[in-house]
């Protein structure tokens, strides 16, 4: 797969996980020992930690909408940006208070791949509320 195909597959997996709760979609594109640097916090190590993180955060989201976009890639790397909108129903670490109002966010991912799987991800998100 070229980097664009890998990027599109990663977008598919993220969409499946966040929109449908199908966190096992990450098995299709991430290695078991994937490292997930969600700046500025400590990295998550392992696909199970990533799945749990998504599952935990989904519980506090209502009306989630996502617009991911492949930015470009080269060699082992590709970038993805995304816009999202949701309402928060619970307080989450690093997130604004759950006021019930819709908030919008911008996300950025930079992924390193090996043998057609994502092995390391750097990501960050900012929210307007």
């Amino acid at each position, binding site marked *: 797969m070229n980097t664009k195909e890998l990027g599109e597959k990663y977008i598919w997996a993220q969409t499946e996980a966040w929109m449908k709760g199908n966190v096992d979609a990450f098995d299709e594109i991430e290695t078991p020992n994937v490292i997930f640097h969600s700046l500025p916090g400590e990295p998550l190590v392992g696909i199970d930690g990533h799945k749990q993180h998504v599952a935990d955060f989904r519980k506090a989201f209502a009306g989630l909408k996502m617009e991911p976009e492949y930015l470009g890639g080269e060699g082992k*790397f590709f970038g993805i940006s995304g816009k999202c909108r949701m309402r928060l129903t619970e307080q989450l670490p690093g997130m604004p208070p759950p006021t019930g109002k819709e908030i919008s966010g911008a996300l950025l991912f930079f992924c390193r791949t090996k043998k057609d799987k994502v092995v390391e991800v750097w990501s960050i998100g900012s929210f307007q509320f």
Partner: protein
Amino acid sequence: MNIKDFAEKYIKAEDEAWQNGNFTALEKLEDPNVIYHCPPLPDGVGFESHKKGVLESRQMISNLQQHWEYITGEGNLFALSYKSSGMYLREVPGMPPPGKKYTTDYLCLFRVKNGRMIETWMNGTMTVLS
């Protein structure tokens, strides 16, 4: 020049621009039509727009400390982390209140073409310290 060398030159050029107001090195590294994507702000287009933004920010922020770090890269694509702290001197819409110290954490991706930076995506968080 490999991509890490380019990234390190960019870091030095940014520091020179922000700390000393000297844009000579930065102008050599950026395409005249470079695009900066930094949501929720509208895209910044062109080196002159970037220069104007830095010059204006230099007038608004005191005690600015910046730290860039090369994360990784290949070919014409690289990533940096960017941390900063400072204090706004006057009211700026969407920015921390004047007199309050803030910190930022950003992830930045850069695309290079023909030895010049042509596109950048930045995203991050800003925290106001009590």
